[in-house]
């Protein structure tokens, strides 16, 4: 992994440049450009608020539910989007891997970086929503909110590890793409995004197993600082770091083993 990180540092310019390229290319030719990155979460927030306060108010809800939902969905989208796109990151750039001497690990990492940028661009909207909710007296804002960049960093390491493993393995094993897509769909409901992990909704016996889902501590951490104004529990903090480390180790391990065969199999 140390060698992998060194390689990563060597290709940081490449990753930065390719990420910028992807983002530019994505919005080139569209009139609103980067505004679309803001518009999508804004729209999402609006819809949630409308649905869960006007159409179907949750019993016993203080009015913070849309915010809760939003705080959980953003990190999930970062994770799921990056992992899903990384399954095709290498095969859709086969030309680079086969024809140019090119560090292939840059490809999934570029995907992760560009999804991270989108996540970061949605944060101002989340902060705005938090501010509005705070003014309406629905949530309390604490300094813990400043921990968000730290959690994002840890989560990025986690996502990068998964993306490395999935991107290289799916070149050899095409079925992985469908497998990943289904797991992610299922995972959305197995992660406490729609429901709080701590409330009465989740049965006691399920709370432990739910923490085995590596995305749980991350989602819980964002919900804690943005919505509840608390720190995540020590257990969740340890789990986050553990999952991120394991994911990175596994990612580099798998990628290293498969690296030499990528150019042949593509």
């Amino acid at each position: 992994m140390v060698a992998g990180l060194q390689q990563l540092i060597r290709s940081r310019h490449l990753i930065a440049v390719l990420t910028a390229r992807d983002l530019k290319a994505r919005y080139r030719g569209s009139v609103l450009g980067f505004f679309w990155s803001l518009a999508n979460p804004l729209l999402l927030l609006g819809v949630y608020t409308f649905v869960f306060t006007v159409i179907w108010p949750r019993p016993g809800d203080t009015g913070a539910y849309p915010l809760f939902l939003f705080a959980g969905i953003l990190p999930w989208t970062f994770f799921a989007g990056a992992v899903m796109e990384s399954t095709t990151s290498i095969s859709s750039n086969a030309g680079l891997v086969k024809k140019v001497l090119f560090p292939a690990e840059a490809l999934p990492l570029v995907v992760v970086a560009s999804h991270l940028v989108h996540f970061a661009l949605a944060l101002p909207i989340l902060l705005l929503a938090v501010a509005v909710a705070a003014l309406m007296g629905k949530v309390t804002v604490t300094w813990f909110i400043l921990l968000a960049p730290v959690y994002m960093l840890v989560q990025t390491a986690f996502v990068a590890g998964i993306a490395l493993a999935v991107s290289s393995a799916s070149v050899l094993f095409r079925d992985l793409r469908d497998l990943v897509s289904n797991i992610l769909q299922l995972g959305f409901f197995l992660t406490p995004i729609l429901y709080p992990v701590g409330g009465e909704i989740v049965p006691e016996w399920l709370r432990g197993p739910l923490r085995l889902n590596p995305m749980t501590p991350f989602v819980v951490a964002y919900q804690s600082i943005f919505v509840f104004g608390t720190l995540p529990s020590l257990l969740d903090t340890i789990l986050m770091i553990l999952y991120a480390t394991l994911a990175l180790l596994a990612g580099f391990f798998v990628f290293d083993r498969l690296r030499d065969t990528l150019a042949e199999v593509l």
Partner: protein
Amino acid sequence: MSRQFAISVRNASKSYRLYGRGSQFQTLKSALLKREIRPSAEGSVDALREVTFDVNRGEAFGLIGRNGSGKSTLLKLISGIIRPTEGEVLVDGRISALIELGAGFHPEITGRENIFINGIMMGLTRREIEERFDRIVEFAGIGPFLDQPVKTYSSGMYVRLGFAVAVHVDPDILLIDEVLAVGDEEFSQKCVAKIQEMKYRGVTLLVVTHQLDLVRTLCDRALWLEKGEMAALGDPVRVVDAYLQEVAGVRARVEEAEEDEEDESGDSEEPAEEERWGSGELVLTRVALTDHQGRELVALGAGTPVAVEMDVDVREPQNDFVFGVGIFRSDGTNIYGTNTDIEGFLSRRIDGPSRVRFVIPSLDLIGGNYRVDAAVHTRNGRAFDYRRGAIRFVVGSRTHDTGVYRPAHQWEFSGAIVINPMDDIHRNVPSPIAETMQDLDAEAMRRAGEKKKKPKK
């Protein structure tokens, strides 16, 4: 520490596995567990078998062979894209690969941005790209399109830009895979000129191409791969010819050099013996340098009218034949080369003994040792009879001018200048060189006379 070679391929083999249905999961598992993928039940294909050669620093090395003979695999091994199954490939220096031009371009963003991204992919820093930026743009000739998305480029512009970035990386080693065939004639020539310039600057070149003429003219050595194995390695003209023979399905019938062909210039820097090969349907029985009266020459003064005479014997009548002549300095520099095809002669038929004369009204060379190659071959280059070093001759000179070519010239002076021609007296005193010249001329006459007396076999 710098080594002698730029590329060293040692006993390298490469086999590709064949993937069948259902074997992929097995493959993934074993790949993760054993770090290498063992050939599965479906077996494997040997793309390269025990290939060994070195490419020296600054050498231009050609790689030829049929499609599927392993050329591209070898190039990928050298570039580090794939690794050999057995053996090793050592590379010393920065590599730039012209394998697929513009492979890293993104169609949606501008040429300017793509130059930067492509350069960074090839290992340049942003600063290095900025330094080279103007040269790249100028070479690619994309001018007004620089700030347009690459998707609006014509395929020619796309390739030009790709080539321009790749050659401006300033590599120590340049790998070229069949990319010179793309683009229009003008750009193709520009590419070849650029590659020649790089060769001159000491860049090591490895060229994979089906343009055999390019291998012959550009490369110092060539390797012919056949079904992943080395079929021939060495002099490019010879290797290309052996390859063409094989492609034509003709066994090369290389004849022994004629034994009465002795080398006249003892201080020649290359092998003095004539080399000769070809399939033998047409045979050059006699190749000689003659003066305007048809006398054979081995030594001459600058500006002498001469002719290269070739007597042809026909074993099988042909209608596709080209006569070629090349003049080389003793260090191997090609002074001039041409053939009847280049100059627009269309061969119709040759049925019996014939004579071909290549007449030079004034051979304007400076003093030195020279050789002449003469050949008769088909239009696509397959040799009937190729005689390298068929003639060796010496040009004597009274002046010590330098270079390879002495254009007809004179000096003119006007204005406030005093400069006099040397005294006639001085000029008439025979210099040592002039004496040598006369001796050589006499020697040439004598030998030419002797040869004529020799009974022909």
